């Protein structure tokens, strides 16, 4: 145990996902030896996060304005929507440079153990988009794990009633039990181009 604020800092850092006690300590001492200006900048960013982050009204991605950069971009194909669990998955798919359409961020996956059902996800917003826009294809890019598969199954069930809508799922090749975010660009790119219709 360290005294006072140093231990507080270590404790707070240690609550972050993927940060164990040892890493927390390392990060804390890194911060202690950093330029005060760097720390102030970090504090300011965290302060803004606490005030509330905006999410894109259309797709649910994190955004600086009412709409995210991708939804505002006229060059993106409006008729293909790639459905992902989290904003970090948008970045993962963007890195592949394979995809020219738009996104829909569900905000998670079906997970009854954590009390997450369709109502807790941005499902209704997705259906509204599909009904109103000129969407012709939905690509389901949920994580290749139990909850992601269940979410994909659910989506297929509700989307198959839309006439003329093609629903595809990322081709396997993604390691099962994994996380889209951690798939390397090549694998994810291949999975995207080899997606199969359902």
């Amino acid at each position: 145990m360290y005294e006072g604020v140093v231990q507080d800092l270590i404790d707070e850092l240690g609550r972050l996902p993927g940060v164990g006690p040892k890493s927390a300590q390392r990060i804390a001492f890194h911060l202690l030896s950093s330029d005060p200006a760097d720390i102030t900048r970090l504090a300011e960013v965290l302060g803004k996060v606490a005030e509330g982050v905006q999410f894109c009204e259309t797709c649910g991605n994190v955004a600086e304005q009412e709409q995210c950069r991708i939804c505002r971009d006229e060059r993106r194909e409006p008729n293909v929507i790639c459905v992902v669990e989290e904003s970090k998955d948008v970045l993962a798919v963007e890195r592949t440079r394979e995809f020219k359409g738009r996104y829909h961020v569900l905000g998670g996956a079906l997970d009854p153990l954590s009390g997450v059902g369709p109502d807790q996800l941005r499902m209704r917003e997705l259906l509204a988009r599909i009904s109103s826009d000129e969407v012709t294809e939905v690509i389901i890019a949920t994580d290749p794990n139990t909850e992601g598969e269940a979410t994909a199954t659910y989506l297929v069930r509700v989307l198959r009633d839309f006439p003329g809508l093609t629903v595809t799922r990322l081709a396997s090749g993604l390691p099962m039990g994994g996380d889209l975010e951690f798939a390397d660009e090549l694998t994810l790119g291949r999975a995207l181009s080899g997606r199969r219709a359902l």
Partner: protein
Amino acid sequence: MHLRHLQLTDFRSWEHADLELGQGPIVLIGRNGKGKTNVLEAVGYLATLGSHRVSSDTPLVRHERERALIRAAVVNGDRELVVELEISPGKSNRARINRGAVGRPRDVLGIVHTVLFAPEDLSLVKGDPAERRRFLDDLLVQRSPRYAGIRSEYDRVLRQRNALLKSTGKRGARAAADDPYALSTLAVWDSQLAELGAQLLAARLDLVADLAPHTAAAYDGIAGSPGGEPDKSAGITYRSSLGSALPADYGTPEGQRADVDILIKALGDAVVESRESELERGVSLIGPHRDDLEITLGGSPAKGYASHGESWSLALALRLASYELLRDEAGEPILLLDDVFAELDRHRRARLAEVASRAEQVFVTAAVDEDVPGELTGVRYTVDEGRLVRE
């Protein structure tokens, strides 16, 4: 196959253990509680990524340490691989093959095969269905490693589905069973359960079909009086929660191989049928997690009927059958005999010794030398106070 070298670090009672090994019998002699079973447990872990004694990894790590290490040089024919497993409870375990990191520990499954026979095996015959399901699944994973993934996926789906049944059923099972919205969410988990469950079920049925003749033959060999005919014959039958919805000849040596698509349909239908009782009880009542392996002797169920001696013979027969099956299919497994000779009568002891003495490699533990049959002389270690001394 055999281990040429085994090294343990902070595994159970062993701060450090180093065993130079060879083909044939390896005998570990030592008083109770000195760490003999711990060594066999480590070898078994290489084959199943689990312990035969506990279901969590935590007790496998030496007190006050963070991780345990098992390293083995495995010889299979003219090939040698070094397999390393790092067990760190609460974090993800890691594996290396020939010092290169592999993704998941699961990827080392299939390199080492073991068949372990221990006093606890009596519960295969006398214990709960869960014991027998574990017996089947452990063997299944050795036979075909991809089922490790399917099993853990299935378990995950079950937990999710049970959580949903519980929360949905709270409002009353009848009301929920009529609510289209609740049903559309449940349907997702129904289909996950049916798809994964069918794969596991099909593989178990085929396993039982293949194991049954070996079991009958092994029992004859153990129980049959020398020269005479055995009075009763042993059988195994898979009992599915599908009941009569399961094609009758599945899981029998004469029948057809189980068809996954037919089982997906059967499970899906059965789940819909039991919707209300599932919602009422808040648990999944249909699926391979509710199944059992019925062991019979002379046509009647062994559980509750077989004598103590007969139960021992049946447990031993199941293990020897596993050994024969793996030997036919996957290369000769390493035989692990933990403290069993003292439990067996003369005839059973001789029969087991005969099989063991022909094994490519067999680990035998006993408290005293007198408990080890004469045929099984080979490398001998004495085990005492955290030390292994080779003689």
